[in-house]
């Protein structure tokens, strides 16, 4: 996983609420067995519209996705996270996220930043007024800085540490292999197996 400490970049304002993962990447893109190439599927239905925000030259090169509330609801497809990352985004800012999407993001090093709905609206206004507006997402200080303002966000210590170190969960868990073995030995004998 890519480590995330602080990132500064311009943003794309996606002013829509309830953007589900089927919109982020339609199911037809999920047939791939590789981990790469998903950027082509990002918002693929919406990108057919030339007026769609991602198609506007003014937002080319943006690395922060400014989303509406309830971003990433629906399907558990991690492909949605891969598509956003592979397109070039490092962080997504929204007032609320779908639980599974948010969780998947933290596994991949895409930072989901939760800010108050009014603050997110304000960021949309700033970026729409001036698309060259730079936003800094500082995980170390847990704040978003823009135009001389600082807006703090919450993230639990453990996830923050893991993201900042770019640590792989499996490696961390396997340090506790003994605890897993002990638990396994104490399980009820009537619990089902698939064999």
């Amino acid at each position, binding site marked *: 996983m890519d480590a995330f400490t602080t990132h500064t970049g311009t943003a794309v304002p996606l002013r*829509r*609420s*309830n953007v*589900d993962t*089927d*919109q982020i990447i*339609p*199911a*037809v893109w*999920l*047939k*791939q*067995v*590789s*981990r790469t190439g998903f950027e082509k599927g990002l918002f693929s*239905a919406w990108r057919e519209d030339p007026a769609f925000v991602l198609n506007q030259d003014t937002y080319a090169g943006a690395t922060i996705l400014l989303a509406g*509330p*309830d971003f990433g*609801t*629906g*399907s*558990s*497809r*991690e*492909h949605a*996270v891969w598509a956003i990352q592979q397109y070039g985004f490092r962080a997504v800012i929204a007032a*609320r*996220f*779908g*639980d*599974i999407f948010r*969780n*998947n993001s933290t*596994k*991949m090093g895409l930072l989901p930043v939760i800010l108050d709905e009014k603050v997110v609206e304000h960021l949309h206004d700033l970026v729409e007024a001036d698309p060259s507006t730079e936003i800094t997402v500082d995980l170390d200080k847990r704040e978003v800085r823009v135009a001389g303002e600082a807006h703090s966000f919450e993230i*639990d*210590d*453990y996830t923050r540490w893991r993201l900042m170190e770019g640590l792989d*969960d*499996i490696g*961390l*868990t*396997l340090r*506790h*292999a003994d*605890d*897993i073995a002990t*638990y*396994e030995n104490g*399980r*009820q*004998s*009537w*619990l*089902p*197996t*698939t*064999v």
Partner: protein
Amino acid sequence: MGRTLAEKVWEQHVVRRAEGEPDLLFIDLHLIHEVTSPQAFDGLRMAGRKVRRPDLTIATEDHNVPTVLGPIEDPVSKTQVETLRKNAAEFGVRLHPMGDAGQGVVHIIGPQFGLTQPGMTIVCGDSHTSTHGAFGGIAFGIGTSEVEHVLATQTLPAYRPKTMAIEVKGDLPAGVTAKDLILAIIAKIGTGGGQGYIVEYRGEAIRKLSMEGRMTICNMSIEAGARAGMIAPDETTFAYLKGRAHAPQGDDWDKAVEHWKTLRTDDDAVFDRVVEIEAAELSPFVTWGTNPGQGAPLNTPIPSPRNSEDERALQYMGLTAGTPLSDIQVDTVFVGSCTNGRIEDLRAVADILKGRQVKARTLIVPGSMLVKLEAEKEGLDKVFIEAGAEWRQAGCSMCLGMNPDTLQPGERSASTSNRNFEGRQGKGGRTHLVSPQVAAATAVTGKLTAPADL
């Protein structure tokens, strides 16, 4: 202070707890399908890791499979399915491939084999894993990174979500189903209402539901934003499980039931949030928009848009506020999916279609090959075919646009599935989520119809 059902099951699965860290939870059952697993198996291979507990893992082919007999024609779908077969063989995971009597939608086969039991933790790389909570366990969808984590360790690090009770008081009126109830719940609390919670469905109306109905309810928890939904086990649960292939037997059965009976929320337990629903006020419920929260009773007009999202949804759906929902004409009716592809759903559809003819293209897709066999044993297939409907092989089918069963742009469906997102059933397709009963009545009239109005 007492504990909720969710807290009890969670606590029983904590492998390791440390200050400032998520709990490490043991996973009792890991369900696998072809879409969200290939990159996870690749990850294991690259790190030289094995599947820790193949004996707690089971795989099936469902999302990509065609529901007419014959091979997969799409080469990309074919590769994905073949990749699962290769991975299952290499890592020693039991697989039910296309053509196998045990094949079916991943959330249908777990319960039908008796692998889904009360008090278990169950995960799958699929958001509708919440279905399995109907048996009183904690079941939730995960992404591919977590699939790899569970394959390698049989555990997941996680913070315990908050608890929400959805208390359904009184009895559902005749003709109102579990699907109507869950659609009404989602419309009430919204697609984000359950974010951060495990929902426990409680109350008289829930207790009276069959296991199939309970699975329909828990299945759609994620559409209200909740990763997991659950219902305390009771005699209905035990009766459903008894005698199934992987259910405990003999003395083990008695020991298991004794434990399962402890899996209920204590009277003095406190939920973080409580939502109350009056069952008597409900009637057949359908969606009009592009998220599952945009729904209304079928006997009402399309509501006026509350915001730009509603306006956008109406535009996509080609609908105007004020039009009676029961005036909406559909091109296709889809009965199936992990929400409503079980035998009870098919029986309900057959009851309505018997002696009638469908006016819209109607696909009836059993959730598993065993459901298909049972339906054919009961002669339901003949009722469907005589009514002019198509009787298919098991799979996810038209629930999502990953296999040949899709809508054409602009086409409109009444669907017993779980998501009415833009393009979910095929690019440009327009979906109305309905119960199996409304789906059947709609097939007969060609427009959204409650069975009572036939």
